[in-house]
């Protein structure tokens, strides 16, 4: 494995860990900040956390499904 690949992996690990820490901090902050949204549903505790995560997973899952339907060889139109 090349040197750069190892560094990229390391950076990926750091990024993942810091994201998790930030995420936990954000959930904790819910107790200190009176968060309210533009619609009522948004006022539900940690709504953006749940919605952001699940929407992203949903998009990727549908994307994978779309591949079966819409993906063709690169020279499809040629």
């Amino acid at each position, binding site marked *: 494995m*090349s040197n*750069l*690949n190892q560094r*990229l992996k390391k*950076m*990926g690990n750091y*990024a*993942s860990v810091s*994201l*998790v820490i*930030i*995420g936990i901090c*954000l*959930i904790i*902050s*819910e107790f200190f*900040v*009176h*968060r*309210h*949204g*533009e*619609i009522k*549903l*948004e006022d539900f505790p*940690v*709504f*953006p*956390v*749940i*919605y*952001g*995560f*699940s*929407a*992203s*997973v*949903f*998009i*990727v899952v*549908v*994307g*994978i499904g*779309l*591949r079966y339907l*819409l*993906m*063709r*060889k*690169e*020279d*499809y*139109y*040629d």
Partner: protein
Amino acid sequence: MTNITPGLLMIVAAAFVPYLPHHIRQVFMLIAIGFSAVSLFAGEGVHWIIFVFGQELILHNADNLTLPFGIIFHIAATLNVIYGWHERRPMEHTAGLAYAGAAIAALHAGDLITLFIWWEATAITSVFLILASGTQRANNAAMRYLLVQVASGVMLLAGTCLYWKESGTIAFGAMELGSTGTWLIFLAFGIKAAFPFLNGWLQDAYPEATIIGTVMLSSFTTKLAIYAFARGFAGTEYLIWIGAVMTAFPVFFAVIENDLRRVLAYSLNNQLGFMIVAIGIGTELALNGAVAHAFAHILYKALLFMSIGSVMYRVGTAKATELGGLYKSMPLTMIFCIIGAMSISAFPLFSGFTAKAVIMKAVGYEGLIYVYLVLLAASAGVLHHSGIKIPYFTFFSHDSGLRPKEAPINMIIAMAVASVFCIGIGVMPTQFYQILPYELNYQPYDASHVVGQFQLVIFAMLAFTFLMRFGFYPPEISSTVLNSDWFYRKLAPRIGKPFLLIANKIGVGANAFLIKFTKQFISRISYIYQHPVTGPVTPGPAAIALITLLMCVLLLTNIF
């Protein structure tokens, strides 16, 4: 001087661009843009009218809606000149300057005929940005692009004529959907705004343009359509639903697309959806949101296209499968790309946050819960494909073995300026909101909103990390993802071909029959000519044919 339509000077200047030496040309273009911008100071009102065939054409109309668009179009044109400074061939510069000029002039059209003229001018000038690529693939894409754009223009013209007939005016103002004329105009705008199923041209053509060309294209055409909707169809309810679909469905395509410039074209489409929703709502708050979003979007979208363009300039490809690990070779480009990515993802302190917040507020205020939820999910999607995918697969991911130089200095400068704008709009919302059409007393930075937004984006990022780590994320595959251009690139030929073959056969058959018939007719005449019944001499076959014809006429007139 300020009476002249903004943009017109740029079009005139473009005619001289091919004849100027390289660096002088670039300076000349900047000066032309500067002089054109002077006309923006004309103030509100009608500044230039001409009379053609008894019609009053308003060439320069300025108001609170044209101004923000005029400003951002000039900024974008300036950035394009700097970004393309290294390019010595004049084709893209000429086309780009004229294209930007035509788009700016279109903003200031006070009537639909003037709008139509500039509408078509943007199509004709911009196609050269795709043709400049010089490949057969680009040529084909350019022709498809031109066909679609001109179709939009023709619909606009037809709609204008019908609208004139029914309402007696060609003034470009608020219209009510209902008649054929207004529907045609609506569709003409819709094609240029890349509505769902009318969007194929965008993802088809933009990634085929040259590196500078794509950056130029990303700024004007679609935002001109957004402006046209804001002026003509604000408050049209259909737009809310069309816009909501527009924000959602390109996201799925962007996730699986491999060509990063095409990914950006999808995300451009999704961003337009937010603006269309806001225009559909049509309140002052919503229109402010649409304009703010268009303004911020032009900058961060150009920045993203610029950064991917810089990478492409250095390594010759923008395909995710062939890129990776470039953060060390092109660190500045990486930083600018991430600024663009954070802006489009609406991170607090970046332009997308302050702009999108206004639209979300307007949607929430109207109580459109489902639309709100779709837009929120689409925001997470934007973060996914533009915020993470673009920088991740280009600069990180894995070592592609590529070790290019950093981008040329002119590209760095252009990206730096765009970045400053992106952050500036993000940290100074009050100043930014001042250029919007209506007064806006809104403060996006309160603890509640900031925390909520951070929760949304960080957990969307965590979802990406989670899917990536556990191998659920779809790997990049070099492929073609079918889009709505499939209908005219594959389906129409497939259905049309048998019909054309049958028509061709009928044509060939009819032709053969006609030839046979004519030959027989001539041979009959020659037979009569050579065997005269009347005695001495007949004048010739032509005379016989004529006599026969006259006889037929006589007979027919006798019968009827």
